[in-house]
């Protein structure tokens, strides 16, 4: 038998076994409706869960890209200071990060796809549940239990199949999300441990940064000192002219404040 036929028979047997349970066939309508509403909220939760995972991966991508940019800056800085060895080290680490970023972007796209599929599934299911509810009310209002059964079979067709389909989609999305969450958790731990700052040698800390900082703080001190020297020689003349006038009132206020302080203390 063909694959398509076999799959549809399996779905149908599931739907029939769900229907056989009730005594008054009209009760099965309410029972099924309750299950449909339940499934609908499950799909919506599924959409929200997948969205949360996607956002988490997006955040990780942003963190790793920021780290890549930092390493590029470090490489530039190192080169400008004539330290090609440090620049090479920074770029090596950056290339190790690129693999992680590519992997995460692929996950992000996959989660996005799942999210879109589930969103569409929830829209379809909602339309069918609405449609079923209308039929259900009509059947309950117009038919006796004996008369209702064929109508009920009609109402059930399609919706049980849809529920099987949607239920399967939610399950698959959950499985995929769970796998990715495990990997995302591992990457969160890596980011937190600082190991990704230093992809080529775990636990040594960000030594490129430290060395560049040390070099640049030395050169910063020198350049600031030079700026100060240049500044003081240029500004010394006007400062000394002003000081003649300004010292007197400053001393006055200091003298005036002395007794006030003593009053306050006593």
């Amino acid at each position, binding site marked *: 038998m063909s694959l398509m036929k076999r799959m549809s028979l399996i779905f149908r047997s599931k739907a029939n076994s769900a229907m056989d349970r009730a005594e008054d066939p009209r009760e099965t309508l309410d029972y099924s409706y309750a299950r449909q509403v339940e499934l609908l909220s499950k799909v919506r939760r599924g959409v929200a869960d997948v969205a949360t995972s996607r956002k988490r991966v997006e955040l990780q991508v942003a963190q790793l890209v920021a780290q890549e940019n930092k390493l590029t800056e470090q490489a530039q800085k190192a080169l400008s200071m004539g330290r090609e060895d440090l620049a090479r080290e920074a770029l090596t680490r950056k290339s190790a990060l690129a693999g992680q970023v590519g992997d995460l972007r692929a996950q992000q796209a996959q989660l996005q796809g799942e999210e879109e599929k589930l969103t569409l599934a929830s829209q379809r299911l909602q339309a069918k549940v609405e449609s079923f509810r209308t039929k259900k009310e009509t059947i309950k209002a117009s038919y006796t239990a004996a008369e209702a059964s064929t109508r009920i079979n009609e109402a059930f067709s399609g919706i049980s*199949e849809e529920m099987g389909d949607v239920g399967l*989609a939610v399950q698959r999305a959950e499985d995929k999300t769970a796998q990715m969450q495990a990997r995302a958790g591992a990457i969160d731990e890596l980011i937190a441990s600082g190991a990704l700052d230093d992809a080529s040698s775990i636990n040594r800390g960000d030594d490129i940064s430290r060395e560049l900082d040390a070099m640049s703080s030395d050169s910063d001190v020198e350049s600031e000192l030079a700026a100060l020297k240049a500044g003081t020689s240029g500004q010394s003349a006007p400062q000394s002219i002003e000081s003649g006038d300004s010292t007197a009132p400053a001393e006055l206020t200091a003298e005036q404040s002395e007794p006030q302080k003593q009053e306050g203390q006593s």
Partner: protein
Amino acid sequence: MIIRILAEGQLEVPDSELAALNELDAGVENAVESGDVDGFTEALAGLLTAVRAAGTPLPDDSLEDSDLILPPADATIDEVRALLNDDGLIPG
């Protein structure tokens, strides 16, 4: 004839297309039977493409049973085997 592609929805497909679709379907089935993973991926994609091309989507609020049901586009060969063996993959 109504065909459901799991995770995508239902399509109304003219009966005249059935012979061609059955041929593609046999290709998928053979790949599943022989465990040919690459062949399966290719055959399933071919079958789904043909169904999508030949069919018109049913409105969302329609409540009709499908005559035929097909696996989701991203299904693996193992998933299809499990679906066919009915070992609990379909909820309900």
